[in-house]
């Protein structure tokens, strides 16, 4: 690719001054016209607080929310990846039934408003699937130390079922998008690759494992990375079913303290921190892939 030299021109300067002006104006309006008294000093105590018994600093609302968001994102990304790869392969097989399953799954999820889906899944998952899997029973019968470990990786006992249904919901939701990414990746591999593998006598599984998937994965890594970032953003929607992740905690805090701007700006920055780190990781990965081409 041709690299163009970046040059700073007068127009850029004018635009930057203009942008600063707009930001200043907004703050001016908030401070003067709304007579909003900002209280930024209050925010840190909602990130960390002193434990009254030991005197140590421990995470408070917002940071706890961030941790839940991270746990939620990690597990639902993993679930979405598993479901997405399986469904993506289903959508490219010769067997009509499997293609149909994949197609129905994707169309069902992509064509419903996410919020409706969340409620549907939540009541279905927590009402039907989880008792069937015995999740509640499982967590209740664990030893205290096992519960502590589960609390670290998932959620504490009281919120465990909710957390699991949240993960299932976002995981299945993400899975639909990952399905399409995987499908397009598999379909982008030239037909001749499969024909050559077939002619050599390789089984379908070996064709997928040694020929199609290694090439497809390389092509879908960048869009897959973007889906991971989306998962973090979309996880905020489960605040609607009272999972205490970052958005939920932010809303609780904002309504009880009325420091609306401070709380939401802090929440936004926390999300940005997560997604920007991921996004840098994705572009670094893309760059490395481009070198090996």
């Amino acid at each position, binding site marked *: 690719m041709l690299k163009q030299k970046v040059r700073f021109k007068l127009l850029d300067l004018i635009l930057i001054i203009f942008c600063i002006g707009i930001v200043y104006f907004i703050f001016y309006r908030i401070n003067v016209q709304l007579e909003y008294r900002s209280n930024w000093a209050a925010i840190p105590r909602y990130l960390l607080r002193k434990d009254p018994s030991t005197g140590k600093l421990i995470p408070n609302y917002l940071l706890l929310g961030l941790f839940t968001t991270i746990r939620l994102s990690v597990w639902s990304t993993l679930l979405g990846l598993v479901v997405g790869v399986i469904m993506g392969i289903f959508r490219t097989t010769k067997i009509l039934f499997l293609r149909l399953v994949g197609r129905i799954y994707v169309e069902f999820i992509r064509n419903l408003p996410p919020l409706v889906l969340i409620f549907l899944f939540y009541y279905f998952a927590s009402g039907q699937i989880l008792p069937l899997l015995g999740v509640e029973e499982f967590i209740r019968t664990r030893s205290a130390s096992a519960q502590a470990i589960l609390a670290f990786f998932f959620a504490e006992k009281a919120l465990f079922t909710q957390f699991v249904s949240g993960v299932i919901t976002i995981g299945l939701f993400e899975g639909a998008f990952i399905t399409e990414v995987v499908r397009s990746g598999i379909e982008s591999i030239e037909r001749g690759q499969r024909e*050559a593998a*077939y002619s*050599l006598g390789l089984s379908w599984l070996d064709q997928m494992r040694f020929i199609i998937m290694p090439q497809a994965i390389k092509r879908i890594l960048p869009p897959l990375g973007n889906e991971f970032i989306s998962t973090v953003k979309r996880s905020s929607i489960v605040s609607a079913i009272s999972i205490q992740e970052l958005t939920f905690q932010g809303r609780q805090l904002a309504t009880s303290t009325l420091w609306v701007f401070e709380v939401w700006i802090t929440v936004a920055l926390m999300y940005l921190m997560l997604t920007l780190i991921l996004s840098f990781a994705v572009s670094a990965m893309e760059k490395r892939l481009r070198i090996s081409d």
Partner: protein
Amino acid sequence: MSEKKLGEHIITVDNVSKTFTGGIQAVKNFSTKIRRSEVLVIMGPSGSGKSTLLRCLNGLEEPDSGTIIIDGIPLDDDKRHRLEIRKEVGMVFQQFNLFPHLTALENVNLAQIRVRKKSKKEATEMSMDMLTKVGIAEKAHCYPAQLSGGQQQRVAIARALAMMPKVMLFDEPTSALDPEMINEVLDVMKNLAREGMTMVVVTHEMGFAREVSDWVIFMDDGQIVETGTVEHFFKNPREERTKLFLSQIL
């Protein structure tokens, strides 16, 4: 070539037809028999169905009707039969179809290890023999993108040969090559023919046909128009369509 001993029939094609979705009939009631160690060249204008016929022979295309028997194994719905035929029939494609994420050596190794269940060491030994045979052993650790078209096609031939096939199919193996690379591939194929490999070759390379082919089928519109030795085609082709075609490519 006359001293070459031809064996019994190894490929029997009986009354095979193939129509693509969309109604184009690519192959119409095609029948032929090919003996062991025979080199058959199939010629014909583009769209005459010669590639489709070739692809039917190893199951890449499914004939609508008719039977194909290769080395006593019928190519039918039985998966074991199909796998057996895929193992015994090597195929070389116009676009090489090497696996771009594997080195030349890994390309040749893969099916030996996965299908023939050889150890990596055994497979590598065989692969190096085959790469030496096609004159490209020194490029064993190169990726396809680092090889020229002619080199890639030779690796593709080595890959098919390493499976020890009883029959080799070539689908216009030199059509995608720059002119200066055609001969290096044809030389490999000629050697193979002289060693007694059974070969079915779709090509317009008259030099190749003249040197090693036992007979030639001229196809048009999915059917055999004329068969005979190369000399027959050069000296006195019978059919008008054959004459017209030959006048265009010679």
